[in-house]
């Protein structure tokens, strides 16, 4: 059977990506048909479509793949995943690429990384998301230039009772931290 890894000169990166993704083994059966990129709402704005990324992964172009903006433009709509004729868990593979890229600091310039870091910081602190805190911090640290364009929107949100200025906090935060610490330890997450 033909196999995308036949393209590979350095199979280790393909294996690395597959190992880090449940069901990722199906990536080996990629046909390079391009249905994924054609189905992607943000495909036209990506530097490499998922199809191209998969070819680059197979070719061992680790740095090129991890520096790509494509995984960060993936918004988890799963259109590619439901259409892939090989049933490759494409959205999950995008998550894998995000995680490796973030861990190895390939994605410093991506706003999506900052947003995710910000989001997770608030979850750790409160156990729940805090929209106002996340947005404020995100714009202050990453998008200071456009912070004023947020004003009218914020005011409208507040006027319609949709902007809560106080976070909601879970009671058993210690339990959540114990679970997450253990998961990080078992998963080898830094």
């Amino acid at each position, binding site marked *: 059977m033909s196999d995308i890894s036949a393209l590979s000169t350095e199979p280790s990166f393909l294996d690395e990506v597959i190992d*880090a993704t449940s069901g990722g083994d199906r990536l080996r059966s990629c046909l390079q048909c391009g249905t994924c990129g054609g189905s992607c709402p943000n495909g036209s704005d990506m530097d490499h479509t998922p199809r191209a990324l998969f070819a680059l992964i197979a070719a061992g172009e680790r740095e090129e793949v991890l520096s790509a903006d494509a995984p960060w433009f993936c*918004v988890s*709509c799963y259109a590619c995943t439901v259409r892939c004729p090989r049933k490759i868990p494409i959205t999950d593979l995008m*998550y894998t690429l995000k995680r490796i890229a973030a861990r190895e600091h390939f994605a410093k310039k991506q706003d999506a990384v900052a947003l995710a870091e910000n989001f997770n910081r608030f979850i750790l602190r409160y156990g729940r998301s805090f929209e106002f805190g996340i947005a404020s911090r995100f714009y202050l640290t990453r998008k200071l230039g456009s912070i004023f364009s947020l004003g009218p929107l914020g005011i*409208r949100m507040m006027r319609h009772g*949709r902007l809560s200025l106080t976070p909601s906090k879970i009671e058993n935060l210690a339990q959540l931290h114990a*679970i*997450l610490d253990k*998961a*990080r330890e078992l998963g080898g997450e830094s």
Partner: protein
Amino acid sequence: MTFAYYPGCSLEASSEAYDISARAVCERLGIELQEIPDWNCCGATEASALGYLSGHALVARNLALVDKSLKDVVAPCASCFLNLKKTDKLMKEDRKIGGKLAEALEAGGLAYEPGSLRIRHLLEVVHRDIGHDRIQQAVVRPLTGLRIAPYYGCQVVRPVGDSGDADDPEQPQAMDELFSWLGATVVDYPVKAHCCGGHMTQISTEMSNELLRRLLYTADEHQADIIVCACPMCQLNLDAYQGKVNNAFNTAFDVPILFFSQLLGLALGIEADALGFGKEIIDSKDVLAAKLDQEETAETPSAPRRTRRVSRSLPMPKKD
């Protein structure tokens, strides 16, 4: 009929109208909701972007906190729904990961038997479990005369790969059927399962504006009075960023965006105040009053008049 209820973070803040109307509708339909005690955030699309096991562990805690006597957990939020479903499936099908997640839960004194809960979206519960007959019996104020565009978005309908009873991932029908039961005119909405951009409104408005424009343009083309959502992110993006889309493309869209539970509640005779109406940024009261009252007096509904027709030409981004 008792369900564990997982409201999720959005429903506590920016999408309170969804929570209020979901609870009101469930009460009216005889669905008892038992909120998961001390639930935490599901991580949306952000937690898994940075940590694999920790992202799933976040979700697993919620599954473990569900009262063990309950069989179903219902989530109105699309992202919460999908995350619960994905983690449950992963724990069940991937022994290695499932074992590690069980160990993580144990560190917090919790346990969850994968596959023991059915993860449901609120739309599916209303459409499938309550169903046509009981809904029609409960309707006291039909939505006759109202043209709605049923917008499902992504995460409510994209299957996690398995269950044969799921709606079609690209041409879902549950909301179409529900609203036809309620007497509304459901417009053909070919972009019903297209993406609203999700968190891209925060990252690149250029990209998200175009996705939102397609949704608004198509609703307008099909003369929809209202776009109805089953996801807090979809509702927020279409509602709060409609003005930005208009600025960017020189359009004049003015389509109210509501949660399906709000309109369902109206049809069931619940007062608008008890359904979170007024929290939408683009006001829906005028449209609702005009359309619904108009049809009460007119015996034969005439073809709806196009009131917000924008332009025949394709909207293009403004050049500075």
